[in-house]
């Protein structure tokens, strides 16, 4: 295979007020023609900086290029002239950014934005450019392209915008596309469509793709080769199967083990302890050593070289040295343990549900005649001590449901009961306070949900103060809470900006726990966190459930994590719950077409499986068109398994069951 791009000993630092941050530390890799190279890592691992360096797009004022060469087609990208690099950008190497909502200029038509690079890099002019733009829009699957090219970005949905961004990147038929987390901001089914689009275009145009992501499922689906980055270094690189099935570096092993495996039942997820190092002062030796339980003495003293495992597989860990002790990798240890034990299903008091929603509707008026039926008649119970997962794509009403329960919105109609009491009956202030104390919320974004001007101790103490706990009891209580969420009491005197994302989310949990609630509504509590940190938080939530008998409503879009943590799952679609069942049951026997499509769209961290899997496509238009919504009802098709079906659909389902076709 032909080498298209060579990165040699690249080191990039940033000048900050605090000093030099060594974002990328001496990395080398090649890119071959027609392949997809995935660069995986957590936030701060240097993967985005690396990708931007390939086009010299890092901010010029603060970036310090310490060393290295990036060779492309006889040019060194790092030293060539501004003119030369501009001729490469967009024409030879183009880029797709993470957030399609911000990657398009809101005041320019999409057609013009695509045309810009064509005008710059080709000899096409006038009508030829317009034709090319329409052709590109058709290529990325935008219907009525001849009309829509005149529209502005806000007239397209997120998934459509990402297609437009891709069309823009393809405009001049580049040889390399760098995709920086291109699907992270999208819903799973849209993500699946975009990934498939990229794959098919890659085959048509013989493109090389550098795919930056933190999602191992996406890697398994897309990559031919994988480079794993940690603390500014590539610590392991190899073919996708080598990385997923024979990884050598303890960090890679830990990452893989931290992903919930839907086919295995466990009590706790494996979580890599600690947090990534601060690259202002990179550690000596192996940067991962302090988080590695089996670290050797040499790991703290000397940096490991890249050991060759096979022709294509390299890993930087001293464990590969001939003198190193042989250690069974963590993911294999787990697999063995997990095969043995299967947890017994928990038993809940189903007679007296802790939270009960009956026909709850939450409509928002959008001007005169338009109503947004965010939540449109949902009914479900959550039993005491249970974790109930609510999943669905953005806009389905899952977050609104959570907000309605905690009383942030007054519901339009229906009834919400908490511990047997209707929440709208809480007339007196005292009643309201008592209710607020019972139900607490954890938010998605650990950055914006903590007041940056308050110390951690004060943030936690707020809840204590409102609920009338005497002042002299605060301090021990705060320390106790910090201890519960796995932080030391030194954190009490810090400010939120001094903490990492995972630590902040722990503070969010401590704040919720401060008033000793009984029900916790967790709205996407882990989706803003890195994989290894996600596992830590999920374990903490599960531990608290067990120790304190907490009840959770766990709202998320990540079905594999929800499946792992929840006892039962409700799937929301367009303001309604379309399917509700025990999590294993739902996972094994999904019935509603939407649920089945959603399940099949989640990329799994298993490349072999990903290659065989077929995605079930849920066509919203035909689903809505052929449906008699009047006769729809929530039918219990198996004990505890409810599906929203019309009479006709239910008949079909029963016929299929009798005919032995297992849905």
């Amino acid at each position: 295979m032909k080498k298209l791009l060579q990165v040699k000993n690249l080191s990039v630092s940033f000048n900050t007020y605090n000093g030099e941050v060594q974002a990328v530390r001496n990395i080398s890799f090649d890119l071959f023609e027609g392949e997809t190279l995935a660069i995986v890592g957590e936030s701060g691992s240097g993967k985005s900086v690396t990708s931007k360096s390939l086009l010299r797009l890092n901010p010029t004022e603060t970036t310090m290029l310490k060393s290295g060469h990036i060779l492309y087609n006889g040019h060194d990208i790092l030293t060539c002239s501004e003119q030369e690099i501009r001729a490469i950008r967009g024409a030879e190497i183009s880029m797709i950014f993470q957030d399609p909502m911000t990657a398009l200029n809101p005041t320019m038509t999409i057609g013009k934005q695509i045309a810009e690079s064509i005008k710059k890099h080709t000899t096409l002019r006038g009508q030829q450019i317009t034709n090319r733009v329409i052709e590109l829009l058709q290529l990325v699957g935008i219907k009525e392209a001849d009309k829509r090219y005149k529209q502005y970005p806000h007239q397209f949905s997120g998934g459509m915008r990402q297609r437009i961004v891709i069309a823009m990147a393809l405009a001049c038929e580049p040889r390399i596309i760098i995709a920086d987390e291109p699907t992270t901001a999208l819903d799973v089914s849209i993500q699946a469509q975009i990934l498939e689009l990229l794959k098919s275009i890659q085959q048509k145009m013989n493109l090389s793709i550098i795919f930056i992501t933190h999602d191992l499922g996406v890697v398994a689906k897309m990559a031919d080769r994988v480079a794993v980055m940690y603390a500014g270094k590539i610590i392991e690189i190899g073919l996708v199967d080598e990385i997923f099935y024979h990884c050598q570096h303890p960090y890679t092993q830990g990452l893989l083990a931290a992903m919930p495996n839907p086919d295995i039942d466990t009590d706790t997820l494996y979580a890599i302890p600690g947090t990534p190092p601060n690259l202002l002062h990179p550690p000596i030796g192996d940067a991962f050593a302090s988080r590695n339980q089996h670290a050797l003495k040499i790991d703290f003293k000397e940096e490991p070289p890249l050991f060759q495992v096979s022709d294509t597989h390299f890993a930087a860990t001293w464990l590969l040295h001939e003198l190193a002790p042989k250690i069974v990798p963590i993911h294999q240890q787990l697999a063995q343990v997990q095969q043995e034990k299967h947890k017994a299903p928990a038993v809940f008091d189903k007679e007296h549900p802790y939270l009960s929603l009956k026909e709850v509707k939450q409509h928002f008026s959008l001007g005169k005649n338009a109503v947004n039926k965010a939540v449109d008649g949902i009914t479900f119970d959550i039993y005491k001590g249970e974790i109930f997962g609510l999943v669905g794509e953005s806009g389905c009403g899952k977050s609104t449901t959570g907000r309605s329960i905690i009383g942030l919105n007054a519901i339009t109609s229906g009834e919400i009961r908490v511990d047997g009491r209707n929440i709208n009956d809480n007339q007196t202030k005292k009643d309201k306070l008592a209710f607020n104390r019972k139900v607490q919320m954890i938010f998605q974004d650990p950055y914006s949900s903590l007041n940056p001007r308050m110390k951690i101790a004060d943030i936690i103490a707020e809840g204590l103060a409102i609920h009338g706990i005497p002042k002299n009891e605060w301090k021990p209580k705060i320390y106790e809470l910090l201890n519960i969420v796995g932080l030391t009491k030194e954190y009490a005197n810090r400010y939120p900006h001094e903490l990492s994302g995972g630590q902040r989310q722990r503070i969010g949990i401590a704040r919720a726990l401060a008033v000793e609630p009984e029900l916790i509504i967790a709205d996407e509590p882990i989706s803003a966190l890195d994989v290894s940190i996600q596992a830590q938080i999920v374990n903490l939530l599960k531990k608290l459930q067990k120790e304190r008998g907490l009840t959770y409503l766990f709202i998320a879009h990540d079905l594999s994590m929800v499946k792992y943590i929840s006892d039962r799952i409700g799937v929301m679609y367009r303001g309604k719950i379309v399917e509700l069942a025990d999590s294993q049951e739902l996972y094994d026997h999904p019935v509603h077409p939407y649920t089945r499509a959603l399940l099949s769209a989640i990329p799994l961290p298993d490349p072999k499986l990903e290659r065989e899997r077929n995605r079930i496509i849920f066509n919203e238009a035909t689903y809505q068109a052929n449906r008699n919504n009047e006769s729809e009802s929530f039918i219990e098709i198996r004990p505890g398994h409810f599906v929203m079906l019309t009479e006709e659909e239910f008949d079909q389902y029963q016929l299929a069951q009798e005919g032995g076709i297992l849905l």
Partner: protein
Amino acid sequence: MVRYIFKRIGYMIITLFIIILLSFLLMKALPGSPFNDERLPETQKELLYKKYGLDKPVPVQFGIYLTNLVQGDLGVSFVFDNRPVTKIIQERIGASAILGFQAVTVGTIIGLLLGIIAALRHNTIIDYGATILAVLGISIPSFVFAGFLQYWVGVKLGWLPIAFWNGFEYSILPTIALAVGVVATIARFTRIEMLEVLSQEYILTAKAKGLSNPFIITKHGIRNAMIPIVTIIGPLTVNTITGSLVIEKIFSIPGLGEQFVNSIITNDYQLIMGTTIFYAVLFVTVILIIDILYGLIDPRIRVTGGDKA
């Protein structure tokens, strides 16, 4: 869009009515009258009151005034020998309009340039210099600056005339004095907006397409930065016009502002009312135009009910 404009015009009329009512009542509450001359005999005064309808109850006076106003009649001046107020405004508006237009245009252009340059040279001497200039421009009142200009440029250097209105060179100093505030406000605002826009991902996307920097800044940067700036040009114009009241007085320019100040001193009710209404109409119109412009620049506002796919 048409419906939107009609709705806005409706609101405009309501706003104007409130302004007219309030200024009418306030003026009536002022002590004294246009015929305050002590030498005037009481009988003469009563005759004059009767002649101008000032003896009637206030609501009736207001009714008569409104009826005339709708027909485009602002009444006659009590002081200037019965000359119609509309005529006086017509004579005086020319100088004020030129001065205001020059100050806002020059101020906006220079302000935009300064702001953009400061943003592009973020955290350099140029940026700091522009910021300091802007702060000075905002904090020094225009009349102080006017005196300064008159003394140095007019008297000491003798380059430009310091008063009266006999051609373009007479308008330069007052224009500069008025424009300083505009420059400062626009520059500060533009700088912040440009910095915000330049950090957006679509700028990086444009860069990744291989476009050159000047192209990116003009095509992608400035238009997006302009959106919030347009909204402040409205109030800024209003401010400039109000500022010209004092500037015209200082430079002895026979404009509307100077006349307005004089009419307040002499309690010339009709002239005060007429000028106030004129200013009010001007302000509301400027704000309406700005709002419509806003929609033209930002497609997200213009296209209503666009279908999402």
